[in-house]
């Protein structure tokens, strides 16, 4: 590891747990704890003042819960990435806090190495989940998907492809789509080719038709 350490802020309302996490992290040469707080409000404030790289955050905390604190940290001036460390195993919690902008989710029952791995991963811009959390997400996706559309609707577009397709359907040029999505024209072309291949469409009209069928764009009822 290089000379710069990963600066971590810890937000958890249990002093003993916090102490345990701190002593664990203090043993890591590439991690430096820059602060600890016991509520969500303080987490938001310290994230601004101390500019940590990673905020380790609990969900159930006084004053401001982890969901709201995450939202404020992510939207705020701090570049910190939020990593959730909690005992909550509910899918709703995972969904809500990921939606709020968290980069990873670790259960308190996980082993210590997982936490350290998670901090490094999130610092490097990756997402991180402990196996139990992945399992919850996989099971949920399987429940939603399983047997829902046998042998049909085989076309799965990524979010980005959907955005590009929306642009195409709205009659925008590749250049306009590119500047709207902050990507190069070449990237737009690349996505466009992939979409065409997935849909099996060879002209713009078929792409637009698909976008309408899938509800990616809506026709103005007045028209």
């Amino acid at each position, binding site marked *: 590891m290089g000379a710069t350490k990963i600066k971590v802020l810890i937000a958890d309302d249990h002093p003993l747990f916090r102490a345990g996490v701190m002593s664990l992290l203090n043993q890591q040469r590439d991690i430096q704890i820059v602060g600890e707080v016991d509520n969500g409000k303080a987490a938001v404030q310290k994230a601004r003042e101390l500019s940590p790289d990673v905020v380790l955050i609990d969900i159930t905390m006084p004053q401001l819960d982890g969901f709201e604190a995450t939202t404020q940290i992510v939207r705020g001036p701090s570049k910190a990435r939020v990593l959730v460390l909690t005992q909550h195993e509910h899918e709703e919690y995972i969904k809500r806090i990921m*939606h709020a902008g968290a980069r990873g989710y670790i259960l308190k029952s996980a082993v210590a190495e997982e936490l350290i791995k998670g901090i490094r991963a999130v610092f490097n811009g990756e*997402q991180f989940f402990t196996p139990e959390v992945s399992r919850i997400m*996989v099971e949920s996706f*399987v429940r939603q998907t*399983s047997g*829902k*559309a*046998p*042998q049909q609707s085989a076309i799965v577009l990524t*979010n980005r492809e959907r955005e590009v397709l929306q642009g195409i359907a709205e009659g925008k040029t590749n250049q306009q789509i590119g500047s709207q999505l902050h990507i190069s024209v070449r990237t737009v072309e690349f996505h466009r080719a992939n979409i065409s291949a997935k849909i099996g469409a060879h002209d713009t009209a078929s792409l637009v038709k698909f976008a309408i069928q899938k509800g990616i764009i809506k026709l103005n009822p007045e028209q």
Partner: protein
Amino acid sequence: MRIPAPISVLVADDDDSLRATIASALNTEPDIVVVGEASNGAEAVEKSRSLGPDIVIMDISMSRLDGIAATGQIVESKLGPKVVIVTHLDDDQYIHRCMEAGASGYVLKNVIATELAKSIRVVHKGGHFFSPRIAQRIVKFYLDQVLPVESW
């Protein structure tokens, strides 16, 4: 003490030697017994009906009926068996389509030695099993769905 009945398995793969290898490997497991083999999707559907296995090990690229369509038919017709896809294909499209068809597991061929028997046990108990690489992809699908689209 009662010994529980072994888990009965049908192996569907159009590669004869791989099918034989899978079958003989599974037969060395004390709690698993291979009750039949199929070399294409149509045969897999037929034998699911006639042999009534607990689990079908299903390849994707097969003649007559591909493994995804065969999975759809088996799951939809409620013939009974659960399907574990065994393939070297790890493309998002295939994973998604297999799940939509109702597969309960997805195991990559390069890890069948360590994961196949495990997947059969998990699926037989009513769970789902995915090779780690596949599970990662599914997590991505999930998050794609859950996360807000930037600059929408």
